[in-house]
């Protein structure tokens, strides 16, 4: 049992709350009534949310709210608004040829932006986020193209795919010289030495000269007698510095033995024509486009 004592501030004559911070005491002043009413008003306002928006679970779902709001519908509306804001550029992109798109700056910018976004979603898993490629997946930034580097070539490659199930796919297959015993190991080594010499790398001269005849018999029909490749066949240029599967002797031997040949799906049917066009424009703009 204690004697209750009110602590009254001497200066103001006002009772304190009894709370003290570093010698500073808080006066027990009443709240302004409007402040209290504002607090009640916010509570009433909050009840409004229950009525207007989906709020409470029911046995078969949840209350829908007066507005019938849903996040799905909201996103759909936003997408619709974005399509409207694009102001017919998509339709224009569908109607114009690739050559025309290149010459219209607004359309080009729109296609590049759309292509960049579509690339990250669909192409980056294999070609990398910067289109820099990996072993077996071509770098799309450089000036070396297996199937041609014009914007039309690129479009056809994306559209039809490489060794895909599309009827007009880019499709050739290098023979599996080693696995199918088409050449002996010694011949493969000789051919590899010759290929090394084509791009100015150091090679065993005797072996390379033996390999030259192997090359002329087996490889030249696709890669050309000078080894510069053939983009109609998807046969890479063997005289430059770009090696999809590596340019060491061991990597080249392995390529001749197994035949290599990666595949890319045909994107027609997976993506709409406007997106494929945008992708072609984007890939062409990366720096190596012809």
């Amino acid at each position: 049992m204690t004697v209750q004592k009110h602590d009254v501030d001497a200066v103001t004559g006002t009772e304190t709350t009894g709370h003290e911070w570093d010698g500073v005491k808080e006066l027990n002043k009443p709240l302004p009534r409007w402040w209290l009413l504002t607090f009640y008003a916010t509570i009433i306002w909050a009840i409004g949310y229950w009525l207007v928006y989906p709020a409470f679970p029911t046995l078969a779902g949840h209350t829908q709210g007066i507005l019938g709001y849903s996040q799905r519908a909201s996103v759909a509306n936003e997408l619709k608004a974005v399509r409207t804001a694009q102001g017919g550029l998509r339709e224009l992109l569908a109607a114009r040829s690739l050559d025309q798109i290149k010459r219209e700056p607004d359309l080009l910018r729109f296609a590049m932006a759309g292509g960049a976004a579509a690339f990250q979603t669909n192409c980056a898993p294999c070609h990398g986020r910067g289109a820099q490629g990996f072993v077996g997946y071509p770098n799309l930034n450089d000036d070396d193209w297996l199937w041609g580097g014009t914007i039309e070539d690129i479009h056809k490659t994306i559209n039809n795919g490489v060794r895909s199930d599309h009827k007009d796919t880019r499709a050739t297959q290098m023979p599996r010289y080693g696995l199918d015993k088409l050449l002996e190991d010694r011949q493969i080594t000789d051919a590899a030495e010759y290929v090394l010499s084509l791009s100015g790398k150091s090679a065993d001269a005797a072996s390379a000269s033996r390999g030259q005849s192997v090359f002329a018999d087996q490889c030249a029909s696709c890669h050309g007698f000078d080894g510069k490749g053939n983009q109609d066949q998807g046969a890479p240029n063997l005289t430059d510095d770009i090696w999809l599967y590596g340019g060491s002797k061991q990597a080249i031997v392995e390529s001749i033995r197994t035949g290599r040949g990666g595949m890319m799906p045909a994107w027609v049917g997976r993506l709409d024509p406007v997106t494929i066009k945008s992708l072609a424009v984007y890939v062409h703009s990366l720096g190596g486009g012809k």
Partner: protein
Amino acid sequence: MMHLDQYIMAIDKAAEAFPGVERLDARAVNRKSDRALYAGREKIYPKLAHGRFRTLKWLVMAVTLAIYYALPWLRWQRGPDLPDQAVLLDMAHNRFFFFFLEIWPQEFYFVTGLLVLAALALFLVTSAAGRVWCGYTCPQTVWTDLMILVERFWQGDRNARIRLDKERWGPVKLLKKGMTHVSWLAIALMTGGAFVFYFRDAPTLADELVAGTAPVIAYLFLGIFMLTTYVLGGIAREQLCIYMCPWPRIQGAMVDHETLLVSYKAYRGEPRGPHKKGQSWEGRGDCVDCKACVAVCPTGIDIRDGSQLECIQCALCIDACNDIMAKVGRPRGLIGYATIAKQEAAAGGKRLPLRLVRARTLLYAGLICAVCAIMLAALANRSTLEINVLHDRNPAYVLLSDGSIRNGYTVKILNKRHEPREFELEVAGLAGAQLAILGMEPHARIRVATDDLRELRVFVTLPRAELARLTQSVTPFALMVRDVEAGPGTLRATRFQKAPTEPGRIP
């Protein structure tokens, strides 16, 4: 702690209410008088003051309101393709125009500088002369004054208003009260209207607002500012200063014994009391307790209680008291601007000079000068041409078929001049480098429109022979943009990479 025997004695004393009736030690914790969890607002009826400070406040109100309402209509020619509004926060184009100044979003530090200056000026003025900002120029004070002016026009001065509030509701009261609120709403509408003119070409927006074709956001902000003007200026008034505004709490740290404050000079006024004609003034103070100072106060305080949080120091009580002092034949200035130090000295019969120059004011003034100097220097050196270069990070470099290496850059050229310009882009400090811009012929001129930014994809290629001369995998160099017509170029440092910076698995 009380000793037990003292405690028992204390209880014993109060133990019996009546012989045989025990007096219980119980306290009504919820007694009605202790139940003041909240308090209703006591309405204030400020009386019209006359005098030097009231005139000054009318003047300040006229000037500040004129600036606020008229500024968006002021024109300033900047040449074709650019808005001709003197002060415009152009949200659509991300530009802030202020007379000769034009600020891009990345130069917002100029606005920050202005805000820092404004804050320091506030500190300086407060430390010198108290809440001058609150009393004269704060929008809350100016608009409240305007709203009270309108209220006085329809309902009369203090006494008439008090009478009107006590009257029963009838047509006259309804008309007077109704017209007051209609006028307040009209002022609020104009205030909200003027606000949105700062963000869009005023004449165009005015037409759009009337025609109903203005952007929704314009109507929204007009509505918000109309509502806040009406509620805060017309209705809330002193409640905002006392309960919502943080500044009264902060300004206590700005004032000291040498700060001029609106003060009641107690040494002169006390002891106060009514004074009969012919009575001597000996042995009493000059205050006749007429409460004229209380009647004019817009925040409903008694200045004779001393400096207090609720006082916005509008100086109207000075005017009211001076009036009375003239009538009773005593010297003016019983309430006036005075420092605490001067009052203490005067109470002892001494006079002290005003000390406006002291460490605190010097510090604020010095800081203001420093910030001004920094901003002026920044403004004088503001370039009308900028180049930003972003080196591609993925891929950082690209090997080409002939063994050369190419790096990609995103280059942004900013033309801040009020005319279109043509530029050339060059590589500086990287021998043998070839420059190419996506979608442009080699050595083509880069045209950048008036007050605009142009983004380019730029490729820098080094042939195999030149690459061998680079000793490190990353070589610093610069891209330079030069106005075709005029003089020196602007450089931006960047880097050229020819190999991985760390051992990697790239063949």
